[in-house]
Every structure is written in structure tokens, then in C-alpha cells.
């Protein structure tokens, strides 16, 4: 039997991107060493107000992502707390060598903010999608990778990342997300590196990240209401370092595990979780839901999610299939 839902997520909140911008602005107001560096991206990064209120703390580099990360590195090396803000697709592909060498290898604590991540840009097409960022960054030493699910996680992630003396990549999308995805009382805390169980269940587990957590919760609710199936939902907001302890604890229930992410099925959360399971002798039924290795279908983020089963309907079906 599904657990009774005690705390349905509060309506639709803001885009995580907007929460990022307001959180950064409040950090920057309190600390003059906080800087935003943008690549003609202050509009899409929701930083127009930041730029107007704190003009001395925003640095514009123009459409030049390699220089964005290099300049951010130089500022960080001079004791500034730097947030380099650029669309995730360009930041993590065009400037990858600067991220690898200047930020990670050289130990400069730049915060890399990938905006409009995944398929947020929808019908603008694959040039503007970032479905590779977890994969490439996971293979680079010395970086924390975070994809917050909701407004609450976004604000907490920004605050905690700002206090970290090491490189961090955060990515979020444009779509409005719930203020706080949460059905269990003790899910309130957010800690980098610790997955957040937002719903508890006994028949299967969804381990999801970023904007893919919300459709998992909707599927879990449908499974409970229509199929008497009780699903656990975890927001694995930190993809690296991965919360291995929580994964093994969930695996010990011997129920199926489905991972869900707005990323290629190659090299992302799913393969990371699979690696933990296999190397620890866990034989749970297992499925990775993400974007397949093909030219991505065109459409809005919602339509693309629907097409590839990152949706209430698709994930409900995946759960039914895996439970056989």
C-alpha cells in the first residue's frame, strides 16, 4: 500500500534560475567579494537586477566562454567568490578545458553556473541542450556537481556552494519548479553530497536529479492512487560526490531501482548509480531513464520529457514494467 501523502508539494514556485539569481544577489549584498561573471547571459541568467544594484560586482566578458572561465579563475585566485554564469551547453562544452585546467586542476574555487540546462531551451535544438555535462564533469577530478530539484534545494545549494573552498558546478533550468518537493517530514534538510528522500515507499525507488525529480513524484502519486504501488523518491541533487551510503541503503530493500535524469543515459546519474550497485554486489532490478543516444526530438522541454518517458505517464509505465 502506498504511504499516505501528508504534504503535497506547494503549488508551482519560481524557476530555479530565478531563485539562484535572488540568492546570489543577497549573498553579494552581504559580501563585496562575491562576483557574478557573465557571457552576455545576464538576461537569461536573471541577473539584470543584480547588475543594476551591484554594478561593481558583475563582470561582463561578452560571448566568450573560454575567457569567461579564465577570467573567473583569475578573480578567484585574487580571493573573490566567483560565480561564472553561462548557458550549461556552452559553459561545459566550449570552456571544458578551462574548467579542467584552470578551475579544477589548479584548485581555484570558481562556482560554475550552468543555466537553462538539459533541454530547457527545448525547440532551439541540440546546439542549446546540455545532455553531456554530468558525464564530462564526472570524469574531471576536483569538482562537485549539483542539480537542484526545486526552489528550496536551489537556494540551499547556492549558499552552501558559496561557502565551499573548491570548484562546484550547479545546473538548473528555466521551468517553474515547486518551492519544495517534499512528502516526508524529515526531508527538510539539504546537504551537499547527501541525497534527499522526498517520499518514502516500499515497492520500488526512483533516484532522480534536477528537474526530473518532480515527474518522479507525480508518477509515485499516480502509482499509489491507481495501482496501490508505493514508491520511494530520492532527489539525488549531488551527482558527485555521490551518496553511496544512501544508494546502498535503498538497494538493501531488494526492490527495483529506476534512475531518472535530464541527461544522456550515458555517463550520468544512472551509470553512476549502476556502478555503485554492481561494485557492491547489489542485484536489484535496475533501469536508467534519460535521453537516449540519438538526435533529440524537437519540442518544448515538457514535450521532450514526455517523448522520452521522463513524465508522470512514462515513469508510471516504467515502474509497472519493472515490477512486471
Amino acid at each position, binding site marked *: 500500500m502506498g504511504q499516505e501523502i501528508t504534504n503535497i508539494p506547494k503549488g508551482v514556485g519560481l524557476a530555479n534560475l530565478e531563485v539562484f539569481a535572488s540568492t546570489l544577489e543577497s549573498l553579494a549584498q552581504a559580501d563585496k567579494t562575491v562576483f557574478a561573471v557573465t557571457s552576455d547571459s545576464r538576461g537569461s541568467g536573471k541577473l539584470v537586477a543584480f547588475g543594476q544594484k551591484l554594478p561593481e560586482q558583475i563582470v561582463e566578458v561578452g560571448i566568450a566562454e573560454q575567457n569567461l572561465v*579564465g577570467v573567473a579563475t583569475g578573480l578567484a585566485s585574487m580571493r573573490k567568490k566567483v560565480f561564472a554564469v553561462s548557458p550549461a551547453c556552452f559553459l561545459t562544452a566550449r570552456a571544458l578545458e578551462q574548467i579542467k585546467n584552470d578551475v579544477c586542476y589548479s584548485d581555484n574555487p570558481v562556482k560554475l553556473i550552468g543555466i537553462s540546462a538539459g533541454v530547457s531551451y527545448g525547440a532551439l535544438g541540440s546546439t542549446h541542450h546540455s545532455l553531456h555535462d554530468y558525464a564530462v564533469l564526472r570524469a574531471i577530478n576536483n569538482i562537485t556537481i549539483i542539480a537542484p530539484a526545486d526552489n528550496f534545494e536551489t537556494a540551499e545549494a547556492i549558499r552552501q556552494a558559496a561557502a565551499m573552498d573548491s570548484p562546484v558546478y550547479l545546473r538548473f533550468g528555466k521551468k517553474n519548479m515547486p518551492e519544495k518537493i517534499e512528502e516526508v517530514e524529515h526531508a527538510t534538510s539539504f546537504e551537499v553530497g547527501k541525497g534527499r528522500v522526498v517520499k518514502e515507499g516500499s515497492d520500488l525507488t526512483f533516484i532522480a536529479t534536477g528537474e526530473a525529480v518532480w515527474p518522479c513524484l507525480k508518477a509515485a502519486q499516480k502509482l499509489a492512487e491507481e495501482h496501490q504501488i508505493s514508491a520511494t523518491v530520492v532527489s539525488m541533487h549531488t551527482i558527485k560526490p555521490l551518496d553511496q551510503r544512501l544508494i546502498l541503503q535503498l538497494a538493501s530493500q531488494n526492490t527495483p531501482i529506476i534512475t531518472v535524469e535530464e541527461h544522456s543515459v550515458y555517463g550520468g546519474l544512472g551509470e553512476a548509480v549502476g556502478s555503485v550497485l554492481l561494485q557492491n554486489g547489489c542485484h536489484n532490478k535496475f533501469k536508467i531513464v534519460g535521453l537516449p543516444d540519438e538526435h533529440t526530438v524537437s519540442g518544448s522541454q515538457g514535450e521532450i520529457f514526455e517523448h522520452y518517458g521522463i513524465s508522470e505517464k512514462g515513469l508510471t509505465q516504467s515502474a509497472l514494467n519493472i515490477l512486471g
Partner: protein
Amino acid sequence: MNIKELEEKSKAYRKKILKYIYNAKAGHTGGSLSIIDILNVLYNKVLNVSPENFNSSEKDIYIQSKGHCVEALYVVLADKGFFPEDDLLTLCQYQSPYIGHPTKKIKGMEQNTGGLGHGLSICCGSALAAKKDQSDVKVYTVLGDGEMAEGSNWEAFMFAAHYKLDNLCAILDYNKLQITAPNADVMGLEPLDKKLEAFGWAVRHVDGNDVEALVNTFDALPFEEGKPSFIIAHTTKGKGVSYMENVLKWHHGVPTAEQYELALAEIDG
């Protein structure tokens, strides 16, 4: 340090570069010999950097974008007392921190470099931070002529001029040879001074293997208020060893015992 003393330093540095490359059986010989006079003048006449002030926010900053010529930088940093020179006997050996590119594991190194086209952008960020802090910190980098083809450098050229970073100076080690062939054959740079001036930099030419000329050029910084400075330092790859000068194979050639002795004799002579 007067000019005569600087010239003696350059000779000593050249011999040490060859000593440690010969010992390691690895290194970028030709380029290290071409940039050494620039590093000599920077560290002995220009930069406010020492082992004592290295962690201070007031010291100057040197980031070597042309990372592969690290042997020249190691030799100068050892001479300045950042670490014992004998450490360089481990150059490029298993588990040695003295690897073939600049690394922050070694005191005196500002950043890890080696991928080309990275140093100038970082310098831009540091120079901008110094401006914001209203500090007197000056920022310097040495670029290789081959790496001028990296697009990231040109992003940084635009940035430095836009932000009027006259506390930034980039020096080009213009020995005119890269690993494949002369720059002019691989990817021509000329007319370089006009390009950089068009990008908003103040540009000067200098003989980059003439320490006196280098001292005079650095003394004139910034060349123009409100503009970043670019020094086109005309150098000779393999400078100081006749059989290495302008010979492509010495890009990362390692001398035999006989060649090594011959080189030392020539430098002393």
C-alpha cells in the same frame, strides 16, 4: 642588479637549464633557452615577488602561459630561493612534483598551465581584481608564438582592452619556430603589432635576448595609460648554443653527453 650581472645570470641560467634537461633526458630545450632572458629580467628587475611575500595579496603575479618551457622558470625560481635547486635533479621523474609544465605544487607557481591559450585569460581576471581592489599589483604573462593561434587569446585581448587593464603586460617569446615549422608556414601572425594595436593594446618591439633592452622596455610600462601593454620580444630558439639556434629538432631535443659539454663550453666562452 646591473646589466653585467644580469648577463652573467642569463649564462648561469642557460647552463642550469641544459643541466637539468640533460639529467632528466626530457624538456623543452629550444624554448627554454629563448625565454630565459625575459624571465631573468622579470624576476631580477621587474616583479615584486619573493618566497617571503609569495602568499601576500600585494605581490606581483607572473603566469607562464607558455607552460612547456617550465625548465627556464624552475631554474629562475630556484635561484630566487623558492626551493632548493637540487630538487630539479628529479625533473620529470616518477612521483616528482617537478613535472614538465608549471604546477602549483611548487612554491612560486601561480597557476597550473600547459594547455595553450589559458594564461592570458587568467591574468585578465587577476588584473581586473587588482583594479577593483585599487591595489598596485601588476600582472605579467609570457605567451608562445605558436599559441597565438588559440582563439581564447583573442577573447582575452578584447577583454583586457575593454577593461583598460594597464596593470597587465603580455610578453611574446617570438622565436618564430613552432613544433612543426616556422610560424609563418604553420599559421602566420603578421602583421602582429598592427593586429594588437587594433585590439586596443599598446605594443613595443624588443630584442628579447638582450637584457639591457628588456630592462629599458619594462621600465617604460605601462606604455600607454588605460591600455594593456604587449611586448613583442624577438628571440632566437635555442639561443646561446650555436648548433641549437633556429633548429627545429631542439624544440624538445635532449643533448648527448658530448653535445652537452659542447653547449656548456659555448655558453662560458
